[in-house]
């Protein structure tokens, strides 16, 4: 920082004349130059850089590996980096990413939300029921779809509110509260769906969940089509690529929204502050209780969107759809570098984390590796991710948040 001839602050109060310079550069507690420009050995900086960017690098290396390995193992008949496969990965990523986006906020605020899997299920069931009722009572399909979205979000939002309210006002640990509500929500979802699946939804619904922005048919007789599925069959249909299905676009929209919210707004800043220091947040006048409630509502809402989209995709509501996704979504968030201690993490990190899991899963399947190996690999990556984060703290000489005054 350059010291200009001391300008008066924008605040009141005059400068004391001829004050001795209070220089605090020679810091004692912080190791010199761990962070600041110009300090530290180049090796240290390299290690630091790698530890910050490792998730990106890991993703890149993994893609590269599959690009080479998949054709090799199949004798060149299958390629990894194709339009079709990339779209498959994007579709697969949608629910995990949506759950993870909300969870990102919760973890940054030093909480955890174990209920999102079943909240997604509940939202799927509720939106299916509302959609079916609305359609059967004569509403046009788009209106019925909106009714489904509203019902899914409302149900999810209510659970989120309850989670947040109990955590913030009654001071019950988030782990316990969301564990409890996840069981409750599970029961409600099964009861409402009557036998785990809501069927009888309007036939045209599949288009909402599966149609895409772009269709591309390569070769003779092909072409590019926007917004409507070309009515083709046989060989042409086999060559048709479905690019950017609506659920992917909807997820991209939620992604942009959460990114904006976390990194550009006061809401995001307060989320970081609460996770970094609850005490400082309270004393700074942040309405902490209300904020915590909002964070859990947001988490439930992204799960609600995931449930709604799954209803569209499968033309049915399912009370079991979200169960298996909870842990994957948490894994994605952790791999993406969000701290379990709160206070640190990014939305883009969660995207990378979700991508890593999806690419890994898809790639291993294409290599004909037994599906159970996915779990072993993902689990290893989760632990390694946290180890790398911790070693970074060690390099920087930063106290772990729990130990920091």
């Amino acid at each position: 920082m350059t010291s200009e001839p001391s300008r008066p602050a924008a605040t009141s109060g005059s400068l004391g004349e001829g004050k001795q310079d209070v220089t605090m550069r020679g810091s004692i507690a912080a190791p010199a130059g761990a962070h600041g420009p110009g300090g530290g050995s180049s090796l240290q900086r390299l290690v630091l850089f790698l530890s910050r960017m490792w998730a990106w690098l890991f993703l890149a290396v993994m893609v590269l590996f599959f690009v080479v390995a998949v054709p090799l193992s199949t004798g060149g008949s299958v390629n990894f980096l194709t339009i079709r496969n990339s779209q498959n990965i994007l579709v697969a990523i949608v629910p995990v990413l949506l759950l993870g986006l909300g969870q990102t906020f919760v973890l940054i605020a030093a909480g955890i939300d174990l209920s999102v899997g079943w909240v997604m299920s509940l939202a799927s069931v509720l939106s299916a029921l509302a959609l079916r009722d609305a359609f059967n009572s004569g509403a046009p399909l788009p209106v019925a779809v909106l009714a489904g979205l509203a019902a899914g979000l409302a149900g999810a939002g209510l659970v989120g509110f309850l989670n947040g309210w109990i955590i913030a006002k009654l001071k019950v640990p988030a782990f316990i509260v969301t564990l409890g509500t996840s069981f409750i929500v599970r029961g409600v979802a099964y009861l409402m769906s009557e036998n785990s699946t809501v069927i009888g939804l309007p036939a045209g619904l599949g288009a909402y969940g599966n149609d895409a922005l772009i269709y591309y048919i390569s070769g003779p007789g092909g072409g590019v089509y926007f917004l409507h599925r070309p009515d083709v069959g046989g060989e042409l249909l086999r060559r048709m690529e479905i690019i950017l299905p609506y659920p992917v676009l909807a997820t991209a929209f939620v992604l942009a929204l959460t990114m904006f919210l976390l990194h550009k707004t006061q809401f995001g800043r307060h989320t970081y502050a609460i996770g970094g220091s609850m005490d400082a947040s309270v004393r700074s006048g942040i309405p902490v209780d209300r904020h915590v409630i909002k964070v859990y509502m947001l988490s439930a809402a992204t799960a609600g969107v995931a449930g709604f989209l799954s209803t569209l995709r499968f033309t049915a509501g399912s009370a079991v759809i979200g169960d298996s996704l909870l842990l994957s979504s948490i894994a994605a968030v952790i791999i993406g570098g969000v701290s379990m201690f709160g206070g640190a993490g990014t939305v883009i990190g969660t995207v990378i984390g979700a991508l890593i899991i999806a690419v890994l899963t898809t790639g291993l399947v294409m290599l004909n590796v037994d599906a159970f190996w996915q779990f072993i690999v993902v689990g290893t990556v989760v632990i390694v991710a946290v180890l790398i984060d911790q070693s970074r703290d060690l390099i920087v000489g930063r106290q772990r948040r729990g130990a920091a005054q």
Partner: protein
Amino acid sequence: MSDALLQVRNLRKSFGGLTAVDGVSLEVRRGEVVGLLGDNGAGKSTLIKCVSGVYQPDDGEIVFDGATVTFSTPMDARRHGIETIYQDLALANNLDVGANIFLGREIKKRWLGGLVHTLDDKGMERESRLTLESLQIRIPTLAEPIETLSGGQRQAVAIARAVYWEAKLMIMDEPTNNLGVPEQHKVLELIRTLRDRGVPVVLITHVLPDAFAVTDRVVVMHRGRKVAEKVTAETNTEELVQYMVGARDDDVAA
């Protein structure tokens, strides 16, 4: 007397059967540094927490800036201009300097006719830099989380925050604790800077050299009572120690 910014009159606070503060009166004038001395358990912290809104006194009166006040929360006291810097500083270590100075009171930019608000990080950093410069505080980078700063630098950020928000009275609880010697000097220097800017400081400490270095007056407490009030220049270490351990007692309370 007319110059008093803060007057505490006959303040009393007990917890169950224990009387932590027993009829203490105290006065802080504009532009002075008052040391509040006493051993652990003397009642310094309880007294100060009554003034800063953490506790509500059982009896007595607080007059601030010419008006009798009652603070039901710390935020209440802050709104009146009383900033208390506790030892833990109440900073979010994962946020940068600007974010901390503006925490809870962020500068925002308005978009779409006020429909959307975004954080004005550049604006907050600019204001933070100006405030730090006006206090002659140098911090190499404002953009890093403050957990990378030293204890003294963090102390300085907490002080800068109070200054930016135009604190009328600053209460500092053992600010030199846990600091290395060079940083202790810098914090004391900052206290003098504050005084010269017209912000009186109440310095809670049991480090006598600190008290002699920066205070104009000292008040000594022992077992909940005020046992002495001295002009710093007219007393000495030995005398103050005797008051602190209860060997001398002016019983100037009430």
